[in-house]
């Protein structure tokens, strides 16, 4: 469906995208996972023909796509990171306007507008102006516009940024549903959980380069000899983390809300030392989980920094 080869884009001295390549098959959901400024938005801007490339090639169904190309763009639906809708038009008017740009026949457009309003759960607010909507409703309309012309590939650029948990979950469910219906999806995010939940394959991107690519399991294999120990705890967590970093076999230590994540070679060999070090640091442990490494750990291992950086 979509193939990007060696995409390159620089802004002055900064190489925002430096040789990014990936492909997405029909019906596949592909995620670009990386922190802010990693090059995700620039990559997809080139992939959908929004931005001129300094180098590389984009193929949609085997045909080259450039910013000046018009016909191929009809195969792609874009959901930009920022809301992209007209606040003074109603939900229906927004959908109809963009539908007309895709040359949809009048009858089909009317039908499709109703279908999409149903999908995004805005049928009862169809004739209300978008500026009267909540943030979550605007996000759903934003996605609906991208879906309207029934594209073969849907490109979503961090669609859940700034969305409340309830709306976020509704959005993720919609995307899961679309993926299961055979739509190819390119999804960018810096939320590890979203990438793990939605994506068949994930490209880990940092500083304009794809550092690793594969299914979640394939990526976890990068750290196959490691275990992830999650310690729910209270007390001076950062002091405890410092103590853990001095233990042999501990690869990474990451402090999150009320917990310390430890990436360690063979958890069974180091667990007692870990618990002892935390106890000596004054940290009270309330729970211990041992699991295989998650994408956050993989990302940290590959880039040396956290997804939240």
């Amino acid at each position, binding site marked *: 469906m979509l193939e990007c080869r060696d995409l390159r884009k620089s802004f002055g001295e900064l190489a925002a995208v430096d040789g990014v390549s990936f492909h997405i098959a029909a019906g596949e959901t592909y995620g670009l996972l990386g922190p802010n400024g990693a090059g995700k938005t620039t990559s997809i801007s080139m992939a959908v023909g929004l*931005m001129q490339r300094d180098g590389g090639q984009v193929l949609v169904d085997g045909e080259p796509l450039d910013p000046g190309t018009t016909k191929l763009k009809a195969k792609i639906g874009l959901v*930009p990171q920022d809301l992209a809708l007209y606040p003074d038009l109603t939900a229906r008017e927004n959908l109809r306007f963009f539908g007309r740009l895709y*040359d949809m026949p009048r009858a089909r457009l009317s039908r499709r507008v109703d279908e999409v309003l149903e999908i995004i759960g805005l049928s009862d607010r169809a004739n209300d102006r978008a500026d009267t909507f909540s943030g979550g409703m605007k996000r759903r309309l934003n996605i609906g516009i991208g879906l309207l012309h029934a594209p073969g590939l849907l490109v979503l650029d961090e669609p859940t940024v700034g969305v409340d948990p309830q709306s976020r979950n509704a959005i993720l469910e919609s995307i899961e549903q679309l993926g299961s219906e055979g739509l190819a999806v390119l999804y960018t995010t810096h939320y590890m959980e979203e990438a793990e939940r939605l994506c068949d394959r994930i490209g880990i991107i940092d500083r304009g380069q794809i550092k690793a690519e594969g299914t979640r399991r394939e990526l976890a294999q990068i750290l196959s000899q490691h275990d992830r120990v999650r310690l729910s705890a209270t007390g001076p967590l950062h002091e405890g983390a410092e103590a853990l970093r001095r233990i042999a076999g501990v690869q990474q230590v990451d402090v999150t809300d009320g917990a310390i994540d430890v990436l360690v070679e063979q958890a069974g060999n180091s667990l007692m030392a870990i618990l002892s070090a935390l106890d000596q640091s004054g940290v009270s442990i309330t729970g211990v989980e041992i699991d295989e490494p998650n994408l956050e750990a993989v990302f940290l291992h590959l880039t040396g920094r956290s997804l939240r950086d």
Partner: protein
Amino acid sequence: MRSALNIAAKDLRQRVRDRSIYVIALAAPLGLAAIFGFVFNPISDADFTATFAVANVDQGPLAAPLVDGVLGGLAEAGNVNLVQAASAEEATRLVEGDGERADQDIDAAIIIPADFSARVQTGRPAELRVVQNANSSLAATLALAIVEGYARELDYVQGAVTTLAAFDPARLADAAGVAGLAASTPHPVTVRDVSASTKQLDNTTFYGAGLATFFLFFTVQFGVNSLLEERHFGTLNRLLAAPVPRWSIILGKAITSFGLGLVSMLILIVATSFILGADWGNPAGVALLVVAATASAIGVMAMVSALARTSEQGEVFSSIAAVGLGIIGGTFFPINQAGGVLASLRFVTPHAWFLQGLGDLAGGSIGDILPAVVALLAFTAASSGIALALLRRRLNP
């Protein structure tokens, strides 16, 4: 083309929903044109008549040409009413409204003292007095100018006689011959009053046209600046990602601006004609000028808008340009009458060419507006070219 029309239709729907278009495009220019027309009409278009009190105390031979000749002639033409006063004091009282004729507005008093003729004839200093009414500055100034003009004439005669006496004293003995020579000599300089009424728009039409053009630049900016709004709302990316040619986005914005501009001008022309009595001239010529002016307004405002990075900046830039060009272009007052640099500078604006074209149309035929139309189209071509060059970069990040 269809996508451009879709974009234009969407923009028009937004603008109609945004009620400010009614204020900018219709209410404001119509209201201001009405106010300006009503305020300025009585001053310049109404029949002007001044009333002077004349105290001819002298009754001498040199007072008669002023009273009977100059002032009498003006009275006969209906420009001046004359009120005879028996004395200088009475004339002064009349002007100050402190006499028995205080009910009558006297703009100025012209007093010819008792020994005026005798003093002039014997070469002694003489004076004519003008008492001005402080509330009638224009008419009072006219009285002063008339009297000054007469005094200057006397000076010339006195100078000529003195010169003749110095070079050929014998000729002075033949007074009748000198008078005959003077009478037969043609005036070296004549001033011909060429009426400019065929080239000058009446006040109502001038202010109607001026303000319509002024607000035209605000009206078209709704379409022109909407490209910046598209960027502000993130919808520009959607348009760029849609299967439409990039030029159709710009064309759509231009169609919006053109539609809004034409409708606004049409309504104002009809309204000022029927409500205020403006006379715009030959409809075909007016249509040609309106189309050319609207096109030039779009080009100029697109160029200004293309310099801005945000919609807020675009609005500020556009407002500054619209107001500045409107003032320089003479939409608020006939700047060509100011003369000098300002009168020439106005032609750097489309406004001035539009008003010039209407003036040419009023004084001639449709062919006479060709220079104005060509100038307006030249503005369109130059500014649109610059705007497109600037926008090309914006639409191809």
